[in-house]
């Protein structure tokens, strides 16, 4: 009976060790992807800086008002595991679709007005009428500008309206990084919990049967206690 129990507990330990190793491997793989994505992001930012100018892509361009477009939903599961889920707010996307056509309409007539530079008499008369029209149109332009001050705008717009493609690429790779970092954070907790459990079981196994991987565990019990005390503090 004792031998059977011992075998069972050893099998259980093996299973837990394999699970722990699997999770560790998974973590390492995701880490690699995260690191390469971040590198890609930096490369794109550097490219954008090269084409836009050194000061155009810096911390000075950050908006005065910011609202997060990504939020992390945290769920604590029964076995002390924590699940992180990065969610992108859908409101931003809807706003963008509404905003874009109005901003194009706003810019159009203003540019036309600036391009007319000849100062003939007929033009002056025309200008007066166009000014009247523009003053009538003014209230329509304002709401568009107000919407631009919305803190929940696309961060790309902090760096200008027509940003280079490389900055958009940087944004998309950092978006992926954010999603991946939530997964890695959850995986880190899984790994730590698995390790804690395994260590606890190893110690119990050694204590009850006196067999297992560690033959001189009892003599080292004090050391193990000190280690665990350090961890808990």
């Amino acid at each position, binding site marked *: 009976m004792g031998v059977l129990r011992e075998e069972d507990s050893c099998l259980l330990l093996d299973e837990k060790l394999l699970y722990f190793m699997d999770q560790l491997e998974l973590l390492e793989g995701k880490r690699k992807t995260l690191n390469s994505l971040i590198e890609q992001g930096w490369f794109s*930012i550097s490219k954008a800086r090269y084409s836009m100018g050194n000061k155009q892509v*810096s911390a000075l361009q950050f908006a005065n008002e910011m609202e*997060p477009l990504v939020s*992390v939903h945290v769920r604590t599961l029964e076995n002390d595991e924590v699940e*992180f889920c990065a969610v992108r707010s859908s409101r931003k996307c809807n706003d963008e679709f509404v905003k874009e056509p109005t901003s194009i309409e706003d810019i159009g007539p203003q540019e036309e007005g600036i391009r007319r530079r000849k100062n003939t008499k007929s033009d002056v008369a025309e200008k007066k009428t166009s000014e009247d029209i523009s003053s009538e149109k003014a209230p329509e332009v304002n709401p568009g500008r107000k919407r631009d001050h919305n803190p929940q705008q696309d961060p790309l717009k902090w760096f200008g309206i027509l940003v280079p493609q490389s900055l958009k690429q940087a944004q998309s790779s*950092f978006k992926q990084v954010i999603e991946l970092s939530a997964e890695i954070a*959850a995986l880190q907790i899984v790994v730590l919990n698995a390790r804690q459990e395994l*260590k606890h079981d*190893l110690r119990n196994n050694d204590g009850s049967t006196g067999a297992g991987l560690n033959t001189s565990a009892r003599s080292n019990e004090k050391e193990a206690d000190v280690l665990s005390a350090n961890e808990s503090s």
Partner: protein
Amino acid sequence: MAGRGKLIAVIGDEDTVTGFLLGGIGELNKNRKPNFLVVEKDTSITEIEETFKSFLARNDIAIILINQFIAEMIRHAIDAHMQSIPAVLEIPSKEHPYDASKDSILRRAKGMFSAEDFR
């Protein structure tokens, strides 16, 4: 903020922070306190440590991303943090590639395979 979701905070060099803010994690709360810190050459370790601790104390932060070379400066504060929320994630920086042997979580996880455990 969508629903009751929490935030991701970031402590890093200019490019790292810029990238993550482009990704849409930036927030300035009612007290105009940001959830990010741009570490420059003249940023003191005390300032970094204080910011890190203030992020740990905030209830609305779920994950703290920190460049590994900055984490090295405040290693004692990171090692002292044992709770699972907020989770601390060490990321590489432009000049310092990621080194798994320095990562506090992996060091803790691999600790069980040290010679002491199998003696």
